[in-house]
Every structure is written in C-alpha cells, then in structure tokens.
C-alpha cells in the first residue's frame, strides 16, 4: 500500500512528533522503503496460526497486595525538565510537575 504525505502527517500527529513539510517528504521516501520490506509478509498464508505475542509462554505473576516501594518522589523530581518559555527553573512545584494550563 502506497503511503501519502497525509499519512505521514497523520501518523506523526498520533505519535506527537512535530514534522515540517521538508521532513515529511524525506520521511515518506524512507518509510515507503521500510513498508515495502514489511509487505513481504503478505505472501505468507497464516490462516489458523496462533499469534505469538511473546518469547516465553507465560502468565502474569501475581503478588500480595502490600507496599513494596518507598516514595522516591524527591529523588525522581531531580530529573525534572527545565520549565521553558524563558524560565530556566525545573518544571516542578510543591511535589508536582508543571505543564501548560489544559483546563480553562
């Protein structure tokens, strides 16, 4: 199936990756090559074959519902990104992360 520039823009939006017109064109040619490679699969008859989703046939382990982790929030927040838009401060306040306002 041939990819279009609109497909690239739509997928980039779904993946939350900004893409400009130039990059979209370059990406189209590279991704078309990769999809052509992938298309080889369509020649194989796979009717009745159980999909293999994982390398080991495992069921999910369960554990007792007890606290096993300590709170490392302060440690984790040391890796907070810079706020941006002119501020060099870390994007945290009061143990929370700062993002642009999403609810009016």
């Amino acid at each position, binding site marked *: 199936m041939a990819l279009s520039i609109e*497909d*690239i823009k739509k*997928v*980039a*939006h*779904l*993946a*939350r*990756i*900004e*893409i400009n017109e130039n990059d979209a064109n370059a*990406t189209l040619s*590279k*991704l078309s*090559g*990769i*999809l052509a*490679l*992938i*298309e*080889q*699969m*369509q020649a*194989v008859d*796979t009717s009745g*074959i*159980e*999909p*293999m*989703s*994982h*390398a*080991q046939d*495992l069921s*999910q*382990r369960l*554990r007792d519902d007890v606290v096993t982790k300590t709170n*490392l929030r302060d*440690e*984790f927040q*040391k*890796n*907070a*990104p*810079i*706020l*941006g*838009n*002119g501020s060099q401060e870390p*994007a945290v306040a009061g143990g929370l*992360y700062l*993002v*642009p306002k*999403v609810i009016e």
Partner: protein
Amino acid sequence: MAKNDLSNGSLKSYADLLQSKQISSVELTQEFLARIHRYNPSINAFIALDEAKTLAQAKAADVRIASGKAAPLTGIPIAQKDIFCAKGWPTTCGSKMLANFVAPYDAHVISQFDAAGAVNLGKTNMDEFAMGSSNETSYFGGVKNPWSFDRVPGGSSGGSAAAVAARLCAAATGTDTGGSIRQPASLCGFTGLKPTYGVVSRFGMIAFASSLDQAGPMAKSAEDCALMMNVMAGFDERDSTSLDRAKEDYCRDLNKPLAGLKIGLPKEFFAEGLSADVGKVIGNSIAEYKKLGAEIIDISLPNTGLSIPVYYVLAPAEASSNLSRYDGVRYGHRADSYTDLMDMYCKSRAQGFGAEVKRRILIGTYVLSAGYYDAYYLKAQQIRRLIAQDFVEAFKQCDVIMGPAAPSTAFKAGEKVDDPVAMYLQDIYTISTNLAGLPGMSVPAGFANSNDGKALPVGLQIIGNYFDEARMLNVAHQYQQVTDWHNQAPSLPEGNA
C-alpha cells in the same frame, strides 16, 4: 602474565592476580582508566566516566579481597552499556532526550555487579535507544572500530564492543533486541552472548522492544562470558517476564569434550547475501569443530528471510508504545518554547529524538493504527510463531545451530546511514533468535581481508535451544582451546600517551 599484557588478560587471570595480592583492584582499574584516557578520545567508546565513583568501588573491592570475601569478579572493572540505569550516573541511552538524565536507582544488572564487587568503569556509547547496527545513530557521535578506524563497530552495543576489542575494559555489558550484542561482537572480534529471553532481568534497562530485549555479556572469551552470566542471570520479581528458575553455574560444562556434538547448519544462513570471505572463515571454523569430533547436519530454517519484515513490524510497534513515556513532562528533554501542552509534547519529541528513532516510532504507530492492526501487527505475530517453530523442528535434529553472525565484516562509517533497509539487513542472521526467544552467541572465528587490505574480524554464531547457555559456552570454550582468534587484539594508533 607480564604487566604490559595486563589489558589482554582473562577475567580468571585478573581474579587470580587480585586474590593473590599481586595487584590491587585500584591498580587494575587505573590501568584501564589510563588506556581509556589514551585511546577513548579517538574511539569514543565511553560517554560517561566518573573516576571518583569508579576508584571508590575499586578501593572497596580491595577491602573485600583483604577480608577474604572476594567473589570471582570482585575488583574487576566492567564497562556498562548506557542503557542500564546506574544510581548517580548519567544514563542517556545514546539520546538527546535523556542527555541530562541521572539515574535515581540501579538496574538489576548493575546491582548484581555491585553485589559481586565488580567495579563500574563507565558508561558506553550506543545507538540511540538501541536502534541501529552501526552506532551511528548515537546523539554522542559514532564509535570507531578498533580494527580499522574508518569502519563502524556495529551496533547497537557499539561502545561496549569497541571497549572490549580495544581492551579498554576487562569486559562489558550489552543488550540485544535484534542482534545488538552478536553483530558488534562479530564486527569487533570478541565473544558475546544473548541469553534466552527472561534469563537476565530487564529492570532498570531502558526499554526498546520489551518482548525481544535481553541483556548479556560482551567479553574476550566464552569462559569470561560464563563468569559474567553467573553474575547477570537470575530471577528478579521487578521484571514481570523474569523467569523464576534455579540459579545455574554457567561454567559447569566448559571443559566437556565435544565428541558426538550435533551441529546444524541452516542452508538459509549460507545463501545469497553472505559475503564470500565471511563464508570462507565460517567454513574453516566448522572444519575445526569436525576435528573436535562434532557431527555436521544440514538443516533448514525456511522462514528465516521473513524475520526482518516481522521484526520491523513488532519492534517498532513495541517501541512506539515504550517511547510514548518521553513527553517532556517528568524527565527528559522539554522544548525551550511552546504554546500549549500539545505543542510541548510535539516539539519536545521532535527535538529530543533522532531521525532513526522517529522513523521507528512512526512505523510502529502506523502498523498499530486503526485499520492496519490485523494486516501488520497480527500477521507479524503469526509469522513470528512460524519462525519459532522452525527452530523447534531444527533442534529435533541437532544440539546447536551454527552460521555467520553478520553477513559481512565491518563496513565503512557513513556507508549505510542513509539507507535504513540496507542497515536492517545487517541483522538477517541474528533477529530470528530474538523473535523465538532463543540464546545466541558470536565467537571470534578468524579474519577476512577488506579490499583495502585490512584484516577484519569475523564472528561465528552459535544458536542454542532454550536455556542451553551452559552448553553453548562449552561449545565456544572448546573451540577457544584449539584456536587463538579470541586472544587477538588490534594494534591501536598511538593516542594521548
């Protein structure tokens, strides 16, 4: 062992020197740090060093040795691929996205080495998020192949590979999603093992494709890899796919004779696409195994050719999901300026990820998007089962499978960087074992001359049945008793003396 041969020693020889107090861990560590200072500026194998931390571990190891409580790797300096979180160390996964990330906790692999008393020598360069076969997608620049500086070391574990080959560390760790331990081991001429999926915990190892990712040792010899496996393998409840199995001693079978060993040679591994000089070296190594008493059996893995298309559906699909966590909110790169939350996500990810990572996220998003799921993702999972079944049939006829680990010797930097599909074909012989979850190794098997007259290493791949690592290490070790390829080290251009 003379002091000037120190960097070319086996892990066992280091342990003997340390435990008999002929050398201290601090001295051994300083020897490797000196080599790093001398050669790393040109090779670029290490992207993070912290000598204070490293030497503190070496001092602690010397105290442990003095108290008589040394384990086999106590005091030995190991290079860690920068995909493993190590508390207090930069952990970047080769990406601008994580350029400022300092790990707040240890990966299971790191804590296992710490518990063994090993010394963390530094973090090694890699393809961005382990996506690449040449180390050229790293945000921190390419890595030189120590055998020929104009060539790539392979990837994604290219920094660890160059560090082992150039003897800048005693041994290193890597991860292998589609060949990222074995292909660089082949291109750089050392021994690398990807264990059975689930044998080494993925906790604290930055995720690429979770159903395929597996960590393993990269070292000079099979014996060294066995000693590393004794540290790395084991159940960890923090990884939901870690297998709860009894602890193994991977050294236990090293000295078994190989008489009667059945080696399967898949015809698909010796067909079109394999360069003639590599094929010749592999043929010589098979002849050596015959001398050791092995029986050669012709087998077929008919779906091998489909492993690349299947992989380039499944791995990008899993990656697009795993890498959605990099949103610029809690850690990682955030764009300098943005208008609203959506704009912040899109700009942060556009700036933080490199071209190959973006391509794979886009492919993964596409194959998982509405209307395409059955045609791509489900189809790929079905063919994955066919590929795994090929191996089940093959192992009814043989004990191990052998063939090349990579289709060619090391290629030149820049040669395939603009052609993703050509780059993907580097992993034609390695990917199928990841899809099946089987263990695979690459073992130095000799050299092929490049057209400009350079001797470049060739790796023999050994594929084993599930949990058969001890036998594979035995098979490799016996070969290394009658060959010397694994002891060959490149002569490096003089660095900063």
